[in-house]
């Protein structure tokens, strides 16, 4: 079998994208009937379903903190999702690393002081993997938390970036992730701060800065898409509640709802 090239002579990637082009983003909020909030998100062929339960009374008293909420993250990687190896157990090292990365990404963002003595459970169900799993998980978790109505200080938008020769690629597939040095970054779009940066390969310092800036911009683009999805969902909610007077556009109506709920203008 011939080896697939990462980047063709005319700067096309193996799936026909340009170096800075992102994959198709599909977002669907609130599909899970029992969860407080849920989000299904897919970047191309990588799709995850994240459910959020809470804030609610903690399952075990010993786990609670008197002044803030406790976050717990779980992930399920079935064998059919296409990742290497069979099903991963709950105490597998890779799984533990994954869940603790997601947890430490969201802990400073969620306003946990508003929910003392409670627990927020986040569960990431991987349906299919084709690279950029952490990116998809973080983006889907952000949306699920918003769907659940958990107070956060900002959206968290994650993106992967790799280096091929001197060209930076965004939103990597499995093939690219395995072959190239790559990093995953999560940014807070409003404050342009970074909340997560993982790098498991070697990248030259000169190139790193360029990739880093690119990741920041890509995060803002993903933020735009997520905003659209949240607005669509809130529009539907507002209409069904009958709060839309009909003359107003959906967007301003939902700004009203947002302000009433004591959130900043997002």
């Amino acid at each position, binding site marked *: 079998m011939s080896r697939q090239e990462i980047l063709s002579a005319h700067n096309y990637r193996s799936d026909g994208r340009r170096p800075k082009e992102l994959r198709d983003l599909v977002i669907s909020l609130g599909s*899970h*009937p*029992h*969860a407080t909030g849920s989000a299904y998100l897919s970047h191309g062929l990588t799709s995850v*379903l994240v*459910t959020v*339960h809470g804030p609610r009374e903690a*399952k075990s008293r010993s786990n609670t903190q008197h002044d803030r909420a406790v976050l717990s993250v*779980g992930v*399920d990687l*079935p*064998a*059919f*999702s*296409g990742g290497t190896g*069979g*099903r991963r157990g*709950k105490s597998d090292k890779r799984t533990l690393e994954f869940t603790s990365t997601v947890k430490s990404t969201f802990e400073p963002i969620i306003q946990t002081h508003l929910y003392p003595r409670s627990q927020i*459970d986040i*569960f990431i*169900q991987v*349906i*299919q993997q084709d690279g950029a799993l952490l990116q998809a998980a973080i983006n889907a978790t952000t949306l699920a938390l918003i769907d659940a109505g958990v107070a956060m200080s900002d959206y968290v938008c994650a993106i992967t970036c790799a280096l091929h020769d001197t060209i930076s690629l965004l939103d990597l597939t499995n093939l690219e992730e395995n072959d190239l040095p790559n990093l995953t970054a999560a940014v807070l779009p409003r404050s342009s701060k970074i909340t997560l940066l993982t790098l498991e390969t070697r990248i030259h310092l000169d190139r790193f800065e360029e990739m880093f800036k690119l990741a920041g911009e890509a995060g803002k683009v993903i933020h735009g898409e997520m905003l659209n999805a949240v607005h669509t969902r809130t529009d539907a909610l507002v209409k069904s509640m009958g709060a839309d007077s009909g003359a107003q556009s959906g967007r301003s109506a939902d700004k009203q709802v947002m302000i009433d709920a004591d959130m900043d203008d997002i």
Partner: protein
Amino acid sequence: MFSISKSEQSYIATSLSSEKPLRADGRDLLEYRPIHVECGVAPLANGSGRAIVGVGDDTTEVLVAGKLEVEDTEEELQESGEATNGRLTCYVSCTSAAYPYHTNNQLEDLSSDLSSTLFQLLSSSAFLLPDTASNNSQLSIIPQRKHWHLTLEAVIICDSGNVVDALFIAARAALWDLRIPKTRSLEYRGPQTQTMDIDQGPGHDAFKTVAGKKESTHVIDFELEDNWDDGVPLEDREALPVCVTLNLLPSKHFLDASLQEERSAPLKLHLAFSFTSSALSSSKAQEMTGPMTRPPPPPDSIRNPPNAVLQGMRLSGSGDLPIGYIRSLLKDGESYARSLAYALNSKLREDDRKRASEL
């Protein structure tokens, strides 16, 4: 909703057992919630299916995918002491997304319980894994040497009651969608002067591809055929087992319980039936006259071969069942399973046709 009081339980049980039974959503005792089934949801697996029972807030959703791996029959013989011509493993994953109020131990218990139920009720179906004496198992690659190991993995997305039925519908869809890659047997032929020695390692001698008609003792390896399609579907897919869960009350039974109804009538009878395709197309039991694709039945039933086979039975939950009731429950269960199998087969065949016409 996840735990209901004794008075609620008694209220629901009484209304179900009454002269004119009432259910919370207005269904009949024997009415299922709308079932949605589809194939091919996980393209990276060899076969996959999804079943959604119910709509809106009241849905049970299960995703099942099957993956095939090659296994060495002799290694398997050493490890487990059984000679097989194909192996089936089932794993059901109960996540805390579907069961948010369960502790980790409860989740594991539930997961192993459902895995063993799925395995028991599927592994006894004859065409999938016949006894080792016959070599015509569909999961065999080179008889006595290499076989397929089919791993069925199920993920429960959410549970609003009747998860076993949904699990089976999804597993059936995954098995319907399963494509076994076509293989070709390879024979090793040594140089002409030496006698055939299969244990000799491959040297400079040529490999010859044989069309599979040679005696199996000379076949030592196989290769995958290079085809556009993913492989062959299982033979006799219409005879895959169908499971119905009868929820038992002292005087009657009902189907497709919601969560509250399950709490109020905890005793359940799971029945798995498989029907040959001719049995489904005729409404009455008839003599079969055409050639049969299954291995020949024992002599005394050649004239009236069974067209419905009870693959397995499982009683779960607290409570007991008078033995005299079992016969009528089996008869009723068979008729429910028959209609369910007919409906599922029609829908899956229709979907196949649509997909084939799209290509």
